[in-house]
Structures are given as C-alpha cells and as structure tokens.
C-alpha cells in the first residue's frame, strides 16, 4: 500500500518532466515563406499586390468622383468621405480618403508598396515556375509599385520613395523616412515602369482568368499619362511652392519650367498610342445590338458616348480595374423612376446629381462652348422652350424645359438625364417610344423628401449602361462593368495637349482632337471655331488651343474621375472650384419656378487644397516628414 502511494505521488509529480506538453505548435503553421513555395500561393501574393489598386469605381473610395464639382449630393450623404472633400472638409486630424494610412475610404497604399516589395524579393525563389513567367509577374508588380507611388505623389506631392522594405527590426531613425522632391519621385516611377516594359505581355491570352492584369499597352499608357502629369503646370515650374522645403532645406518643387518634360510626355504618348494601335485598340462607336435595330443617328451618338465607359471591354479600353465594379455607382446615379408606374421604386435612387456647371460645360450643337457660340442664345438660356419634332430624340416632344437643354452637342444628351430629356433604353428600345424624365416636384421623379433625388436636377446618364432596368420595386439590375482606368480617347487628348504645350498648334494636334470630335458627332475643331465661335482664331494660338483642349477633355472625360485631377495639374482649380455649385430649383412644381438657377453651395479652393494633408499622427511619429503647405 505504502509503495503504491509512493508510486502514485511520484507519478503525479512526474508530469512536470514532460516539457512536450507545451510544444503544441505543429510544424507547418503558415509563415510568409509559404507564399513562395509554389506557384499557386505565389499567384495569391500577386493578387495581394493587385488588391491595393484603389476601388475607383466606388464613389466612396474615389475622391475624383465627388471631390470636385461634377456631382452634388443631398446633405443627407455627408457621411460619404469623398463628398466632404468637395465641401472643403478635408483636415489633418482625420484626413478624408487617407491613402497614407488607409483610413476613411482611402486604400493603404504604403502597405501596397510594401507587399510589392515582398513579392519582388521572393518571386524568383518559387521552384515550380518558368523563368519567363516569374519575370512577367515581377514586371506587373513593378508596374503596380510604380503606380502606387504615382497615386501617392498625385495626392500628396513630394513623398518618400520606398525602393525596398526596411526590416521590421529597423531602428527608429532608419524608419523615419524623408519626403523626396517631386521630380525625383517622378523619375523613380518612370524608371520602374521602364524596367517592367520588357517583360510585360502585350495581350491577355486567357481573358477569363487574366483580364485585369497589367499588359504592355497599360504600362505604356500609364507612363504617358504620368509624364504628362510631370510636365503639367502643377509640377513643372510651379512657383507657388517656393519655400516648401525638406528638413534640410531641399526644395520639393523645382520652380524652373522645363519644356523637356513636355518632350518626354509627347514621346511617351506617341509610343503608347502607336503600341495601342498596333494591338488593335480603336475608338469605340456604338454599332447597334440585337435589341436596338433601326435607331436614329442621334441615339447612336448618345450610346457611343455612354458606351465608352459602360460597354465592357470595348475596343477603346486599355485598362480597367476588374476588381472595382460599378453596381453601386450605377444604382445611385440612375433615376429612381422612369415613368409614373415606378414611383414607389427604390432599387435605384438617382441621388448622385450632376451640377449645372457641368451641364454648361458641354458644347452647343455646333461644337463650340455655349457662351462662345454666335448662334446659341446664351443670355436667354434659362428661358422656357417646348420640345419639337426636330429634337425628339433628345427632348420629349411637347415638353417644356429650359433653352439651356436645347441645341447642345450629342454628348450632352448622352451624358446627362434631365427634366424633359429622353432616356433611351432601360427596356424600351424603340427610338420613337422612349422613356423621358419628369423631375419637377410632384412629378414621378420629383423630390419627395430630402434624400433620394438629384439635388441639382441632372443625372449622370453616361455612367449607366443602356440596358439597365429596375425589374421590380426594390431591384435594380445593371451591367456590372469594371471601372475604366485608361482608354484610348484619354491618350489622344493627352497627346494633343502635350503636343500643343511643346510646340503650339499644328495639324497633328487638330487631328487628335478631331478624332474625338468625330466620334462625338461634331465638326472639326477648325471648322467649328471658324464657323461659329465669337473668337474664330482661338484654335490657332497655343493659349487658345490649350483652352479648347482643356474643355474638350473636360467634356470627353466627364464623370470618369479625371476632372478632379486635371483641374489641379492645370492649376485651374482655383478658378473652377471657387465658383458656387448650382442646380435647378428642384423644390418647385412649375417649369417657370423650376428653371431658376439655385445656389447649392459656395465651394472654395485654396493653395492647401492641391494636396492632401498628412495625418497629424503620422507627422508626430515621423518627425522627418514635413506637412503640406496650408495644413
């Protein structure tokens, strides 16, 4: 007995000896090395690098949709961070769309860059991949790394360059990186893209699994666009930022204008366009579909303009973000109802209204600005007028609307929905029996309570695919197209701009503008100005042509997230974004009262607004960072 008890006691205490009791972690717990042990996991890491592409198709994440003056929303949507940028609520305490740290709708781009660096450090280790494939993947990631740097540069101006990842154990001073002058950052970005070019594939072989990956034309196009940015007034000879210096006194902005930057831009644009042409990219035109047989030329033009963005993977699209699709954007742009029977529908809501300023940007039917057109009665633009047979494909026959909406270029009718405007499609494909909008108070699309209606009165039709329908009271079915990052038309206009900046007007510049105008159903720029403009020689001077190109670009690229950045790089934001935001008086029931220009908001833009503020906290943690001027 005693023996037994002694054994019992000893064995009880023997448990202590088993140190294995605490060794519970199995050997193959995932660590970062696992990511590069085989192709399948390396592909996951590739997707990780891609996943930091900002969701530009989502208006909550793309500051360039609501951040400028294109859209205006009801105050109910003040929770949308991007809209608050337009309202001047950007701040250093809690920055809106904070790309630096990844807060408030911003993508954490430094994380994206760090992921790219990890990928580039390791991809060559993967055993079961062909060398060529590794190089191609690495090239794609290099491009992404360059693009993320560019995105940060565009938002913040001078930024640190993260060539390689610092080790986690890096000491305090090592990790406190410095911002670099913008020219140096541009150079680094271009260097990276140039490195990637040689290994990128020209086309996508398997469209079902690889569309969305970076190809050679994407890299060339993006390079062209980035070089145009680098040559633009904001970054080229900008004297506003004299005195904005690094800790050691180094200037962030080079105040000397350098025409060589435009030369580089011209070369890059030419190369990108040539490459794209060689691969079969061409401007998109709506050619009709099974359901749209026998449509009028007017409707065809309208659909061409809607299709450049909404027709998935059309011939013009060079780059689209397959992971950022547009269901939400469309449902919120599309009018709530297209006739009285849909009055109680809630699937789409039309809350993302377009401002009167943007509606005024479009040319007259003669292809010149409405305030320049010798035939278009600018002074009486808010008078009432009744639609007739002549414009029945644009405006409902017999419906009273404002002069403002008459005699405009086809892109106006393609891009905008408005009170009395024809809304082709959405299930009605007979050109003589289309929907039209009625959006005065009391009408089926009129304002009911605060919230679900277009506050300025216009709808962004361009972003809505023409077959989308509200199939029931709560369901809006839409073509879920990926957000277009780069299209050929964009490159044409950039090329024209760069050429004009470099050498002034010449036939090549006109040609590239005219390619866009022809697709839009407009006469050539020379003919339009000569024939209809109050300043018929405008296109012959560099300054005049610059103005024309800027407006052409404004119209052509409207709602595509370009205007926000363009106004900044042209340094035109102080003029354009200090104007009041206006719209029709949508609280009114009669045409007379409705068609009055109503001020919605006094927008302001000052020097500080060119660039994002860095979060106060980021500056506290890294004392080597200098805050952007004005914040």
């Amino acid at each position, binding site marked *: 007995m005693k023996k037994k008890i002694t054994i019992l006691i000893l064995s009880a205490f023997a448990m*202590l000896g088993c140190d294995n009791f605490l060794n519970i972690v*199995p050997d193959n717990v995932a660590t970062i090395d696992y990511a590069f042990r085989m192709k399948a996991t390396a592909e996951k890491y590739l997707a990780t690098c891609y996943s930091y592409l900002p969701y530009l198709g989502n208006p909550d994440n793309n500051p360039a949709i609501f951040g400028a003056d294109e859209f205006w929303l009801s105050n109910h949507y003040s929770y949308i961070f991007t809209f608050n940028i337009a309202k001047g609520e950007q701040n250093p305490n809690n920055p809106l769309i904070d790309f630096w740290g990844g807060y408030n709708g911003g993508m954490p781009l430094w994380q994206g860059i760090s992921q790219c660096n990890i990928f580039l450090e390791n991809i060559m280790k993967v055993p079961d991949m062909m060398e060529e494939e590794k190089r191609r993947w690495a090239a794609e990631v290099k491009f992404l790394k360059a693009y993320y740097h560019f995105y940060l540069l565009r938002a913040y101006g001078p930024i640190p360059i993260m060539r390689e990842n610092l080790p986690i154990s890096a000491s305090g001073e090592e990790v406190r990186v410095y911002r670099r002058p913008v020219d140096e950052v541009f150079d680094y970005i271009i260097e990276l893209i140039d490195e990637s070019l040689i290994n990128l594939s020209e086309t996508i072989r398997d469209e079902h699994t690889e569309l969305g990956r970076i190809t050679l034309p994407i890299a060339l196009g993006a390079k062209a666009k980035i070089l145009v940015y680098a040559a633009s007034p904001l970054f080229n000879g900008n004297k506003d930022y004299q005195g904005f210096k690094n800790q050691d006194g180094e200037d962030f902005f080079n105040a000397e204008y350098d025409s060589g930057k435009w030369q580089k831009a011209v070369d890059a644009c030419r190369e990108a366009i040539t490459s794209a042409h060689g691969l079969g990219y061409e401007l998109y035109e709506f050619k009709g579909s099974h359901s749209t047989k026998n449509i009028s030329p007017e409707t065809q033009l309208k659909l061409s303009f809607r299709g450049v963005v909404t027709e998935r993977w059309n011939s013009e699209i060079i780059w689209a973000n397959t992971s950022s699709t547009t269901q939400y954007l469309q449902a919120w742009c599309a009018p709530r109802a297209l006739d009285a029977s849909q009055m109680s529908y809630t699937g789409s809501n039309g809350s993302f209204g377009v401002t009167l300023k943007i509606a005024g940007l479009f040319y007259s039917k003669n292809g010149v600005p409405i305030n320049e057109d010798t035939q278009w009665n600018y002074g009486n633009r808010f008078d009432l007028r009744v639609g007739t047979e002549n414009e029945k494909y644009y405006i409902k026959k017999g419906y009273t609307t404002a002069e403002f909406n008459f005699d405009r270029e086809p892109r106006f009718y393609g891009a905008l929905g408005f009170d009395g405007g024809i809304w082709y499609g959405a299930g009605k494909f007979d050109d003589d029996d289309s929907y039209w909008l009625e959006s005065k108070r009391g009408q089926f699309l009129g304002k009911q309570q605060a919230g679900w209606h277009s506050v300025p009165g216009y709808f962004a039709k361009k972003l809505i695919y023409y077959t989308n329908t509200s199939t029931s009271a709560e369901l809006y079915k839409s073509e879920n197209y990926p957000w277009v990052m780069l299209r050929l038309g964009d490159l044409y206009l950039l090329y024209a701009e760069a050429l004009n900046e470099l050498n002034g007007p010449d036939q090549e510049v006109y040609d590239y503008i005219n390619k866009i105008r022809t697709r839009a159903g407009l006469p050539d720029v020379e003919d339009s100005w000569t024939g209809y403009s109050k300043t018929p020689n405008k296109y012959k001077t560099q300054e005049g042509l610059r103005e024309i190109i800027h407006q052409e670009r404004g119209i052509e690229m409207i709602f595509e997230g370009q205007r926000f950045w363009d106004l900044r790089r042209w340094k035109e934001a102080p003029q354009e974004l200090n104007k009041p935001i206006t719209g029709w008086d949508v609280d009114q029931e009669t045409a007379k009262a409705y068609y009055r220009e109503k001020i919605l908001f006094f927008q302001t833009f000052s020097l500080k607004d060119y660039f994002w503020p860095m979060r*106060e906290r980021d500056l506290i943690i890294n004392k080597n960072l200098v805050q952007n001027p004005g914040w």
Partner: protein
Amino acid sequence: MNVLKLHFKPIAKVKIKSKILFFIFLVICSLCSTSMYSQNEEKKITGRVVDEQGELMVGVTITEVDSHPVNGVVTDVNGNYQIFVKSSSSSLKFSFVGYKDYDIKVGNLNVIDVTMQESITELDEVVAVAFGTQRKKDVIGSVTSLKLSDLRVPSSNLTTVLAGQAAGIISYQRTGEPGQDNANFFIRGITSFGVGKKDPLILIDGIELGVTELARMRPDDIESFSIFKDATSTALYGARGANGVIYVTTKQGVEGPPRISMRAEGTLSMPTKDVEFADPVTYMKLYNDALYSRDPFAPPIYSREKIDETELGRYPIIYPAIDWRESLFKDNAFNQRYDLSVSGGGNIARYFVSGSFSQDNGILRVDKKNNFNNNIDLKSYTLRANVNIFLTKTSELIVRLNGNFDNYIGPIDGGNEVYYKVVRTSPVDFPPYYPVDEDHKYVQHIMFGGLKDRAFLNPYADMVKGYREYDRSLMMAQMEFKQDLDFITKGLKFRTLFNTNRISRFDKIRQYKPFYYELSSFDKRTGKYSIDVINEQSGEEFLDFWSDEWARVQQSIFYAESALTYNNTFKEDHTVSVLLVNILRSQTNAQANNLQLSLPFRNLGLSGRATYSFRDKYFTEFNFGYNGSERFDKAKRYGFFPSFGLAWSISNEKFWANLKNLINNFRVRGTYGLVGNDQIGSADDRFFYLSNVNMNYGGFFYGKESDYLVRGIRVTNYANPDITWEVSYKTNLALELGLFNEWNIQADFFTEKRKNILMDRVDIPSTMGLTAPVRANIGEASGEGFEISTDYSHYFNKDLWIQLRGNYTYATNKFEVYEEPTYEKEWWKSRIGYTISQPWGYIAERLFVDDDEVANSPAQRFGGIPNIAGDIKYKDVNGDGQITELDMVPIGFPLTPEIIYGGGFSLGYKEFDFSAFFQGSARSSFWTGGDGGPAVIEPFVDGKNIIKAYADSHYSLENQDLYALWPRLSTQHQANNTQFSTWWLNDGRFLRLKKVEIGWSLPMKMSNKLNLKTLRLYVSGSNLLLFSKFKLWDVEMGGNGLGYPIQKTFNLGVNVVL
C-alpha cells in the same frame, strides 16, 4: 484533518460555516470529554442557537463559565441544546469558530435562545489560501473573505454583488440586461495597459472558470468566497495570478441525518431610471430649427400642419406621436429563484446535493400576433453534488459534479441594442404598426410602419420580428484524492485532483422579414386614409432560421493538480508548513477561426510554499510559482515568480498583556513578490514567436466578368521570439487592529509595478507598410493604493444586537514606460505619469458667439459641416492656430473608478432582523455616449430622437446659451461638436442604497410544532436610491446610459430548513 474525526464520535453534526475542521474538532473533543459531568446539576436550561440569517447552528459549544471541571454541551442537529448549570448566578458562554463568543447570565431564565454573530476576524478562523487553507492568524498575505450572507442579494447574478462588499475590489455594472449583466470587477484596479487579461483569475473549487460561471454560482452552495490580492497569496498561481484571484469553494456534506434547506424568492424588477425624451411636437419643431439653422435654404421637413395636427392628436395614425420606449417596454418584470439542498452522511460517506432554478425576464413587450416570445427569458439551472468518501482511515475520495445550464430566449440583437434603437428612431415618422383596415383584412402579418424614400428604423418591427435562443451549459466533473502520509512522517499529506469541464453555447435565431407600410393617402375631411406596403418583394411572413456561429462556444478544459503538504509544530513553539504542488492545464476551443486558435491553451507549473511561525508572534512565509505557457518561445517559456512575507503579532507579546482587553489584536505584516500573466495580447495573436499569415485574405477579381477571384495573403502577426510574461511586482503592508473584542480594523497599503507589458510599437510610420502592429514587452505601469475595512458588532442583550461594517478601496495607477512619439512642445500629450484609463480630450471653452468668432478663431477642422455660432469652441493649447490632436489634454478622472466603498449595518431584535447596505464609487469619469462619444446620441442625426434634457437646454437663436447642455442642433453629424472634450466628460461619482433587507424568523416554539428547523421570511430591495449629480440616466451605467438600464428590485423570499 477530517480523518482524525473518525476516532471519536462527535455528538453533533458539525455545521461547517467556515472551512476548517481542525479547530472545530479540537473544540468538539474537548467537549466530548466533559459533557458527561453535567447530567445531575441543579438547573436545566434549554434553547436554540441560530445565526443572523436565522439558520440553525449545529455544533455550537455552550460552556458554563468558570466551571471546574468544564461543564459544556454542543448544539444538536436542530440547533437545540440543554445544559444543567449550578445556579442562576452562573453564566453561559456560547462559542463557535468564526463567530463571536456570546456570554449571558442565566438568572431565572429556563430557555435561552441565542443568535450568534459572525466575526470576520475571529483569530482561530481558517481562511482559504492558494491550494489550501491557513489559520487566519497565520496569514501574511492579503486575503479577504466575504461573508456568505453578504453575497445573498435579490439577483441571479453573483457578480453584481461584489462592489463595495470587500476591500480591494473595484467594480461597476454597466447594464441591467438579464444574461448580460455581469459586473466588471478588478482587484486593486487595473495595472496593465496591454490588450490582454486584466480581470482576476476566477477559481471555483480550484478550477479556473469564467465570469459567467461565477455569475451563475448560487450563494447557498458556497462555502467560502475569498479574494487574494498581494504577491504571497497569488504567487503560487504564477502564470495567472497577476491580476488577483477570486477563490470560491462549494459546500461539502456534514455527518448526520439529511438536512434539507429550501429557499424561494420572487422579485419585481424595473429600471432604476429611464432616460427621458422630448415630446414629439418639440421634436419636430427642433428638427426644423436644426435644419434651418444649418441651411437657411432648407425647407422645413415637418410642415406646420403636421406639427399642429400632431399636437391636437386627432389622427394618431396619420400624425403619429410615438413614445417608442412605451411601445417597446413594459414597466417591470417578475423574476424568481429557487434553491434546494440536501446534505448529510455517515462515517463512510458524506454528501451535499443541491439544485437551483432561476428565471429572469426582460421588460420587452411581445406582439400578440406573433406566437413566439421575443422578450428576454433567461432560465438558469444548476445541479451540484459533492460526495466525500473515506476509502480507508487515512484516505479520502471526493467527487464533485456540477452542471449549470442556461436556456435563453430574447431579442435577436440583445436587449441593450433594443434600447439603443429607441434612440435611433424618430417619434413622428410612422407608428410601430398600422391597425388592420378594410383594405388589408386578408393580411396575416403585422403591418409595421416605415418610410419609402428614406432609410428608417422601426425598432418595434426589429424587436418582434424574431428571437434568439441559446443554450449554455457548463459540466464539471472533479475527483480529488487525499492521503495521510503519517506513516512516512507525521503531518505529511498528499492529494491529487483531476478535473474536466465542458462549456458549450449555441445560438439559434429565427425571424421573419417584416413588411413595412407607408401612408399613401389621407383625406382630412373624411379622416379616411389608405396605406401601402413598401417592400412587397423583400418581406416574408414565414420564419427563417440560422445559427449564430459567432456566438458559439465549445470549450473543453482539463486540469490536474497534485500536492504534498507538511504541517508540524515542534516543541510547541515552532510551527512549520510546506506545500509543493504541480499543476497542468489544457484548454481547447472549438470556435477557432484559424489554426493557431484551434491549438490547445496550456499551462504547466510547479509551485511551493513554506511557512514558519514562532509562538504565534513571528511569522514568515516564502512562496514561489514556476510556470510554463505554450504561448512563448522555448527560451522564454518558463517564468519563476517568488514572493515572501513577514508578520508580527505584537499583541501576542508578553508586554502587551495589559493592553489585551483594550486592544485585543495588533498585528503588522508585509509581503513582496512577483506574479506573472501569460494572457497578454488578444487571443488572435497567440504565438508571439511565430508569424501568423492569413493565406486567404481579400484578393483580386480578374477576368472579363470580374468573377475570377484569387485570394490574397496577409501577415497578421510578425514573429517576435522575445515576447514573454507580463510580470507584476507587488508589495503589501498591512496593519490589523482589534479593539475591545468588538471592533476590527484592517488597513492595507499596496504598491505594484507591472513590467513587460505587451504594447504596439507606436513609432513605426505608415510608410513601413506593415499589415499588423509590431509588439514588444516594453510597457511598464505602476499602481498603488490602500484599502481599509472595519467591522463592529455588539450585543446589547440577548434579543438585540447590531453589526456595522464598511470598507474603502483606493487604487490608482500610472504609466511608467510607454512607447510614444516624443512630444517636444506638447508635453501634455505624453501618457507617462497619467493613469491608464485617463481620458484625453479637447478643452471646450464654450460655444461660438457668432460666425465672426468662428472665422477668427483657430481653425477647427474635423470634417463634417462647417462651424457656425453655437458650435463648440476649443482651446488651442499649443497655440499653432489650429485645433488638432496635439491640443488634446488629459481631462477629468480616469474612466475606471479609483475609489469604491461600501458600508452597512445589520440589526437584530428577537425574531426580526434588518440590514441595509450602501455602496459608492468616486474618482471616475465617463464620456457621454461612452467609447462612441456623444455621436451615439447626437439628436436628429440619422433619425435619432432627442433627449429631453438636450431639448430643454441647447443653443438656439432664441436662447443663445453659450454653456447649454447641447451645442447648436444639426440634422447632420457635426464632427466638431462630437469630439471627445470637456463638454462631454461627466463625473461618475455616486452613492447608492444597494440593498435593504427585513427578515423575520419563526419563533422556535412554532417551528418546533411545524417540525421545521428554521423558517425565515424576508423582503428586500436592491438599488433603491441613487445619489449622483448626473441626472440623465443611472450614472453607474456610464457611457452605456441609453442601453438596457440597471434594475431596481423588490424581493420577497422564504427560507426553510427541514
């Protein structure tokens, strides 16, 4: 020690009120040997002895004072005694371990019934200490035992009792929702700022369990409830003890015929205070004002007509004026609790078996149209069986089985959320539901009110659309074996214990998708209206079901402990004890969403204690814990945590003899030592030495159809093999004082230094692009404070007694080492030297006088709508011309109270007893709206209602009060006004009448007739009064003020012992 008892035949069943048997036994044997002498004396006295609760006391010794040889008896199983004394001039002395002695002169009495009073600091009392017991007078560490009578409050949740009951506990309760109302409690405050465990280790019969398991303990099952606070009392739990220990043991059987105890309680429960909202008409007027004041172009949303008609109330359906709280909640709820226990046994085996049932109801309404219950209904059952079996004369086997089961039905999102929804709803947009009208005769579902073209929330629909059911259970099986090893050497014992627990919980949710209706027409002349369904497609009449996987718990815990103990006294003067214990613990959770969490949680340890005392004057103790945790790298896996203590009972010195009557106890003691904590960091980053990678995080969609998803990879933890234990260095100095044998005072002063606190490296800039924070054991914090407890008891005569008690705890702490950016100019931003829960905020000067002042003041850009007159103006502390994070300064008291105190009295007169207990809290603050800040209750924003106090006091053009309760109203979120600032920090100080109880026990004559041992009836109430400066809601709820309110209860109970 139990073993020894077998050699004698105690004449009475021993009632175990405190957990020692040894001393009881000594007393008993001394009586056994003497009782036979008392047979033929002159005067016979009979009577019955009960405790303060009227419970019969078994085994109380009654001796005739100054009798030679000693004349004494012991009360029997029924608490009765009879004794023959020499004459009426004799005195009787009643004594029982853990109770105060009671002397009475016999006089001409023949029947003497006595109520014994518990004495907290009875010198011979035995208290629970880590892995064993010690005589109270031997204890050097800081251990507090709660009286079991104090644990009995009209609540089914034991944790709600703790505040103010014992020195050293900081506790508060934030919600009164049944099933969710566990109080927060900390021992001597919180001294760690890591994200890991901060609350104490809870041990029930030696087994680590959770707060909910403690909450469900029934006071009638508890034998002892102790709190270990300092290093020597907790060091043995090296791995887990740093935050203090709550140690509970359950009752065991006592020899004798079955003793059946029953208790039944019924409780009426209601909110202590309801938040008041503005009336609907005021709501609309203010809403329009708010709209207009921010945007002069904005048309009013509520028309004159609507406001007038709402006021007239002629068409309540068309112009609803809804008191949502009234629509959703009842005034009170009825709860009930029943306890039943049987104990008894013989020489071979003893048993204690108990069962209990409690039902707690919520105050939510139920719609008659539904045939299910969406109100909170928490039924809790416990079953416990403790059986002790003597296998041989020297070996004992104890089997403890315990099951605890909750069946819950309640609202889907919980009661607290239902309360919050009331705030988030406008009172005038729609009624909860429309009555059935001619057009909708055929409609089977409830026609809930809603809005077509705006987001809306119908809390009534949300509440009644379905319900959540959960079943939670705890099963515990424990076997303990004890062996006397006197055959090896005297005083050596061995015991070993195996325990397994299974905890499970699964939730089921059933709900339909409500149909919402909106008014579609109204003819004012005829009063006719029509309504239309607005979500015909998405509504569903039938119930849908899913199980809430997030709430699922399945846990399996294995625990083993073996101990060798040795106790002996040499030459009567030198008392020595040694303890060596080893433990092994393994826990596995089924609910693991990654591989690392699926692995078992394990601890292994060896602990020891050695004590030595000399003549009950000088005491010394050494403890250690040597523990391993699976969470750390091999090199850092084990921690050694030693501690030691010294005590001196000055009152036992010879020179004190003269003072002994005045100061019966005077003792000083002190301890110092280390205790560890391995539960640092969140559960998700378990193995700090390994990196953790999520191989399926996010990803990218490729392809023409954007449908080819490749998942991404993300590091969720960066490896760091250096991470190890958080260590606490504790010092405790204490003074014990006993005065006139009636009054005890105990004061403890403590300091603590917490090192190796795991914290995020904060100086890593975003440009590093890390996807997870990097952590290291670099933080340090310190804590200090004192606690005083006192009790006083006095018998005026045999019928009247009084007892007073009180305690006071002050515990504060501060950051010592905290990695933070260096603030060159803004020195106030550094946390060093501030308490861990110190709030930081802006200094709100007042409201802006006019728009010019806004333009000319430092820029306040927080996003949201532009500031105007009536918005909050902040102080630019660093003077840089803008209000930024750098202008936030430490303001107010910490968010965790630093002072908790409690005090009360008990009074007995014959069959009646009366007690009252107050509890208070001080030096704490809370944010309006809690962690979410005031935005949580921001009036009108996202359709929120407005609290009456804010409706009465806010800035408006008519009332430009620059110090109004709420700044200028807005219908949109105004980020400027909802920043954390002095404007929204409130003083959390309060004093409340926590409990009042009046009891009446059936006089003995009657109970004897009824063949009962005891019958006691009592009424009690809890949370009856609250004294606080804060008036909007029950201040103890702090920032959760709009949640499910703390309840006040009225309770009726009966306790019968057969």
